[in-house]
């Protein structure tokens, strides 16, 4: 018996087909049968009010099973009086590999402990790569990422910005890492009660 001569594959996963597979028509029909079967099964489930495929019907539906550390979207943490914890140091904007964070800083002479605050804080979600480096760079624990994804499907990529007001919407009842102690006296100065 002579060994078959070695034949180098044209590409790494080039298929080795038997004569039955080379006959083409039978295997094609089998494949159509599989696809059609799955389609029919899902269709039947759908018609009887159940869910067919695993597809999540975004944006009407979002997955409940995001991982606990999923980097979905950013939130700005708050001081007890509702102002942003952010000191507008621009560390997040500087470290951001996609350069999507833009901050306008302003001077607050009334609060000598926090004289610099962000008057505007914008994140462009059309370019954000959700790497979380901004969270790591923040020296004040002012920006975090929560597992929920930003909810704005749209047709215009230039309108996918979130501003300070939207990012400040996160109001946890209790937060182990950040207990929000009520400051004596000064807390009532501004912001919501």
């Amino acid at each position, binding site marked *: 018996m002579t060994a078959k001569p070695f034949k180098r594959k044209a590409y790494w996963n080039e298929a080795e087909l038997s004569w039955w597979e080379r006959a083409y028509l039978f295997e094609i029909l089998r494949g159509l049968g599989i696809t059609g079967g799955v389609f029919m099964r899902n269709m039947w489930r759908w018609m009887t009010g159940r869910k067919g495929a695993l597809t999540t019907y975004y944006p009407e539906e979002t997955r409940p099973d995001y991982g606990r550390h999923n980097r979905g979207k950013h939130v700005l943490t708050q001081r007890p009086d509702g102002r942003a914890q952010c000191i507008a140091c621009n560390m997040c904007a500087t470290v951001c590999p996609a350069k999507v964070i*833009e901050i*306008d*800083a*302003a001077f607050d*002479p009334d609060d000598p402990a926090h*004289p*610099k605050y962000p008057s*505007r804080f*914008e994140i462009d979600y059309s370019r954000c790569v959700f790497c979380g480096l901004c969270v790591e760079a923040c020296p004040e624990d002012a920006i975090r990422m929560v597992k929920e994804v930003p909810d704005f499907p749209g047709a215009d990529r230039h309108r996918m*910005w979130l501003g300070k007001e939207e990012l400040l919407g996160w109001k946890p009842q209790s937060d182990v890492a950040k207990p929000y102690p009520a400051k004596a006296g000064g807390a009532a100065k501004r912001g919501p009660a």
Partner: protein
Amino acid sequence: MPEIFIDGQAIQAEPDQTVLQAALANGIFIPYFCWHPHLSVHGNCRICVVEVEAKGGSWLDISCNMPVTEGMHVLTDSEEVRAQRKAILQFVTLNHPVDCGICDKAGECTLQDYHFAYNGSPSISRDAKVHATKFFDLSKRIVLDNERCILCSRCVRFTREISKSHALGIENRADHSLVRPAEDRRFDDDPYSDNVIDICPVGALLSKQFLYKARVWYLEPTPSVCPGCERGCAVQIWHRRPEWRLNALDPRQNAEIARVTPLENPAVNGPWICNKGRDLARIFERARAEQPMLKGKPVELAAAIDAARRLIDEARHAVALVSNWGSNEELAAFKQALAGRFAASFVKRDRQPEPGERIEDDFLIRADKNPNTAGARALFDDAPAALPDGADLVLVWGEGCDFGRLPRGAKTVFLGSYLAPENGHADVFIPVSIQTERRGSYTNFAGTVSPFEPCFAKKPSVADAETLFAALAQRERATA
């Protein structure tokens, strides 16, 4: 020429040099806070400490106040020196708030750099930091953060030795010391006050205009020349880096002057400029004229150039008033291309001193508030009090011309950069670029030529005077 040895390297020093000067002149870096090449030696920060080796043993001493002596051996990076520097930085930052995150100096701060290079460890002090005044108004332009101040006294020495206003001093003792204005003098009256912001080695002295405007690493400098007076100080115009262009925030921030700092030029201004030079945005960021017009009617730039060319062709006695804000290149282009077509060309003074402005002093500020009078006078005559009668066309280049005093009945071609009522009255108005949009050079009163670079793009409807003059000089073409 005494020969000294720094880190074993033989150096030829000048006889009147200190060890620090000799080292810096030969490329050996020794850190310093309070020493400044243009100020007297104070020797209070101690960070320039070096080890002097001698026969009986070695000792540590500050290099900024140590004259060189023949055959002296100095070590700048020995074990003792490093330990001493580290201890000094611990001491300097004893009450420093380390609020670099909100400090405008962060990124160009000497203390930050040295701390990173020579200390690198957090404070070992167990005592609470002494708190001092934040945001003390030193003048209308400068705010002082006493917590960040390391009391190097550079600002105090600047007002005593350079600006001679004697407006600052240090009061109280020890860690209660504060830089304060003198009781009988106002720092507002010092026209050079903003230089203390640059020489402050930390973020204690801050410009109110620039406060929290941008982190410095978002900005880049373009070398330029201050057009505020005929001194023509070398300056750096800081503007946003293109890679940090803003998309969501006000897009005007991408093309505006963030701040102006001096560019050291020993032949003109040394390392200083006056406060007017810091406010170049007040000159350059006035409302711009960007629309070419014929008698107030908006037209395309090419149509306006055609109309101006026709007027120049038809004129029998044309007179030109040349701007002394034009660069040498533009003036030469005018001389070469157009001067022959005009019966006379005169230099016009574009800007007069503003009310309340310091007119002249014996340091930097000069009485003529235009940058290129010397360059323009080298090519053209001074304008007479009244233009000769009989002129039927006047070309006015630049601002500062009283249109009411032009000869009656004369047509006017006006090349201007800023919105002004005259723009609409001229027969032809052509908008031209300003200094921040073009390359060129100015000649100052002493004959020193200083170049400037463009930092912003000009609008397509705005012409560059240099190329415009060549276009105006072309005789009738197919367009006529």
